[in-house]
């Protein structure tokens, strides 16, 4: 029993009553989803050179992870790499692209600008401070710009999240992946209690709730109601 639960964490799921439910369909679906992630060909700034061009080129080959089929249409894409700053004029279009993508859809924010506004955070009349004010973000990859290796690490985090945290029984809810490697000098004992508390409290993300709490989202919705949903 230990072998099965260790090696196949999603095939066998403990349910609170003490019994075991075989969720083979989850495992099959998650396996196929994580190994065939199609990115949306979409870049706004200099991170796009690193994230979409450099990683797609043969030297660092994105197709090793099954994510090389960049789609020009959001209807066929699985995840969006927000590579670069989002300006206020672009924010409704990003939201529109996100909503045109088919479920399940994922967002990776790469670079300082997409995470927080980066060097344009203060005294800027045009930069939205972080793309998570517009769309819910699953994985953040820091850097200015990040190395392609860092992007691959983020992509593998996303794959891990899909593999471990998704279930067709809980559509729209995801589980954050547990950290895979530790920085030097930090032992698991140092933060075990904190991690346990986090895992118990904030482990599940409700995507819609997270999105609704953002400031900029209201302005985006106003814009979409004004420009797109006219009768």
């Amino acid at each position, binding site marked *: 029993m230990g072998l099965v639960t260790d090696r196949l964490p999603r095939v066998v799921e403990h349910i609170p009553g003490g019994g075991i439910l075989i969720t083979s369909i989850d495992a099959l679906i998650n396996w196929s989803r994580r190994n065939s992630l199609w990115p949306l060909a979409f870049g706004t700034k200099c991170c796009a050179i690193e994230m979409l061009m450099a990683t797609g080129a043969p030297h660092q080959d994105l197709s090793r992870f099954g994510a090389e089929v960049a789609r020009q249409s959001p209807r066929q894409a699985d995840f969006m790499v927000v590579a670069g700053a989002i300006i*206020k*004029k672009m924010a409704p279009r990003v939201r529109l692209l996100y909503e045109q993508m088919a479920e399940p859809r994922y967002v990776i924010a790469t670079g300082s600008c997409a995470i927080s506004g980066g060097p344009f*955070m*203060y*005294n*800027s*009349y*045009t930069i939205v*401070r972080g793309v998570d004010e517009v769309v819910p973000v699953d994985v953040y990859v820091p850097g200015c710009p990040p190395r392609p290796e860092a992007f691959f690490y983020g992509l593998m985090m996303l794959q891990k999240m899909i593999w471990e945290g998704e279930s067709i029984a809980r559509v729209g809810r995801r589980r954050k992946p547990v950290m895979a490697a530790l920085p030097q000098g930090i032992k698991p004992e140092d933060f075990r209690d904190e991690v346990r508390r986090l895992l118990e409290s904030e482990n599940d993300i409700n995507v819609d709730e997270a999105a609704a709490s953002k*400031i*900029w989202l209201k302005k985006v919705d106003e814009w979409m109601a004004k420009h797109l949903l006219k009768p």
Partner: protein
Amino acid sequence: MALEPAAAKREKADRPAVQVPPDKLAALALRLRDEPALAFDLLLDHTAIDWIAENRFELVYVLYSTVHGHYLMLTTSVPRETPVVPTLSAVWPIAHWQEREVYDLMGVQYDDHPDLRRLFLEDEWQGHPLRKDYKDDYMLGLPK
């Protein structure tokens, strides 16, 4: 200097630079373009500087002659309360969009401009963001 008595040569400039009052700007620009010895037939750049301490906008026109290959920087100053200058879009057609950009970001009003609308920002945008005293409700100030 012979062309326009009101123009003054600017010291401390990288290129030959001339300052004129705004009401003499259009006539001088036309003469700079049509005089065969000068023949400034290309407006390379038009921009504005907000000198908020001196309460004025400085408008900069960078001219180039494709015939002779020489440059001239033409500058003029307008007060910040009434930033009105004559348009040069009749002299150099490229000034049409460059003046729309300066109007969009700095709020300089161009007299007789055929189509003075915003170029980059949305039409419903309030204010002119490259002014030094611009504020909006989303902007975050630098922490102390």
